[in-house]
């Protein structure tokens, strides 16, 4: 733009509107997002001694995490659980999104609305619904009993690692469908026509055109599900019982039960950096989707 740099600077500093815009775009997020994160990062370097908060910088909380096999074990187990849920969600979500995107515009909208409906429902209600399905006398067990496939209710459905897995998949599936659907829908229709015109079959179109071009949606879906399942401690608490334990529950325990906030904060920081690593990895993936 043909402004002398000085004038541009002057405009920025003087204009009160710009100051207001800057405040709302930068100031408010900093205040409400970065400040709490900063405060618990600070907490994680403090210490709890006999119920007293000692405001001295120490790495003890992190040492506790890295030297304790219980913490590490649950951490690894939780990551595996969330990766599994992410994989199932992305694959299922892709199939559903692709199916929906190939319907007529009217039906397409109805389908997506249907799959997004759970997002308008309270989280707690959804968890109780999942419990109602998975429970000892739940829908699933009753169905299997009625079908004669089992003679006693299967206990593994509820209060176990499997139960957490199923609950996480069910609860976060909409978050996987939506970005994938949007990515598929954005692919110009004539690319599929061009593929067929050049002799490609349905599989060629899916594998060489639709899948690579919808990769950004897949990546976002994966990040969404992974990060959200990683941080969820309510669902594991409600359906995991004593048989299923996740890292999120451990963090919650430190804050809510053990009242060791510095340790809880340190564990939360570990979780935060795991999530950030996932996001960073996703950012790198944009390079995979083009082929020269």
């Amino acid at each position: 733009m043909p402004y002398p740099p000085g004038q541009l600077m002057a405009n920025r500093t003087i204009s009160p509107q710009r100051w207001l815009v800057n405040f709302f775009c930068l100031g408010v997020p900093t205040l409400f997002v970065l400040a709490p994160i900063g405060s618990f990062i600070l907490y994680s370097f403090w210490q709890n001694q006999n119920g007293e908060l000692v405001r001295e910088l120490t790495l003890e909380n992190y040492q506790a995490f890295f030297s304790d096999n219980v913490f590490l074990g649950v951490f690894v187990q939780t990551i595996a659980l969330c990766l599994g849920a992410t994989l199932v969600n992305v694959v299922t979500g892709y199939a559903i999104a692709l199916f929906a995107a190939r319907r007529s515009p009217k039906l397409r909208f109805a389908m997506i609305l249907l799959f997004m409906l759970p997002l308008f429902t309270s989280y707690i209600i959804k968890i109780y619904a999942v419990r109602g399905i998975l429970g000892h006398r739940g829908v699933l067990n009753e169905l299997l009993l009625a079908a004669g496939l089992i003679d006693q209710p299967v206990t593994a459905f509820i209060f176990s690692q499997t139960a957490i897995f199923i609950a996480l998949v069910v609860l976060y599936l909409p978050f996987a469908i939506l970005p994938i659907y949007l990515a598929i829908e954005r692919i110009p229709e004539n690319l599929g026509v061009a593929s067929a015109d050049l002799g490609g079959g349905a599989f060629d179109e899916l594998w060489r055109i639709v899948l690579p071009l919808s990769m950004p949606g897949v990546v976002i879906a994966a990040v969404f599900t992974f990060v959200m399942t990683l941080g969820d401690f309510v669902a594991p608490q409600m359906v995991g019982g004593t048989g299923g334990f996740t890292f999120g529950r451990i963090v919650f325990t430190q804050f809510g039960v053990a009242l060791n906030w510095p340790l809880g904060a340190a564990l939360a920081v570990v979780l935060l950096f795991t999530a950030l690593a996932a996001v960073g990895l996703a950012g790198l993936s944009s390079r995979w989707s083009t082929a020269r």
Partner: protein
Amino acid sequence: MNDSALLRLENIGKDFGPVTVLNGIDLEIASNEFLTILGPSGSGKTTILRMIGGFDQPTRGRITLNGKDLHGLPINRRPFNTVFQDYALFPHYSVRRNVAYGLVVRGLPRAVIDKRVEDTLKIVGLESYATRLPHELSGGQRQRVALARAIICEPRVILLDEPLAALDVTLRAQMCRFLKDMQRRLDVAFVFITHDQQEAIAMSDRIVVMRDGCIEQIGTPETIYASPNSRFVAGFFGENNLIDGTVVSIDVDHCLVDTAIGRLNCRFSALGLAAGRPVHVALRPEIIGISPDEGHSFTIKDVQFSGPSIMVEAADAATGAVPLRFRIQGGKTAQLPKAGDLVNLTWSVEDAFALPAGSAHG
């Protein structure tokens, strides 16, 4: 009619719901011709292309390739390739991968594909752009990729859907020559869709003029330019003076027409032209000249300098009716008429052409 026809459209019709967009299309395409389907938007020209490509099915009639009916043959099994209006290049693939696509899906060995991609890129002059992505190319280069992607499949017919519409004027002229040159070199049939008569004249062996879902006229560019068979075609191809008249008498290929400026002798070619029929006499601006002694008496109304030539507007000296526009050569030595001058206008009988009033199919 023509035994060398590769592709034949027989009485093709297409309805979209209650709307008939194409009707009674009969067309033959020879194995190495450059055929242009020309018409304004909504004339059904793209629908014809889509039915040949298999993207749409005709409601009536049939399309045959070497006598074999193409009905029910899916898009990917037809030996035609399309250059789409917006090119439809795969945005995540490099030029090389885009061009290779047709061979990759056929499962050809890697070495064969690489060789043929290289050769094809050379043909279209893009060998140094092989690793670029489509968004890193100019419009003309994308066009070439789209063409390369089609010709590498060695189709019997290449279908081009207004591929030059998105290009600027200079580039369009350049691509016109390029496409024509490609078609000659590859010796393959091109079916080219356009609404631009200049593109059509510049490239085609034959032009099909479409109007309202029907074929208005088929012929070489020269025929269509010099002997349009309807007012629509006459007006579609450049500027044309049309003088209303009535046929008085008719010869083998000439007729006498009574008009407001007297009895004119003209050529004609339309079937069913008879004495008493209303006609238009078409006079191209470039065939009218000023003569010192003989001709029709006209008054000059306006003289416009337009670069290489000078556009003159005149009207009948006696009545002030029958406006004619014609073009004369400029230059320093030229004797230019002025507004108000009385002049004699002449033209050769062979250049005046009588066409039936109203459209060809009534």
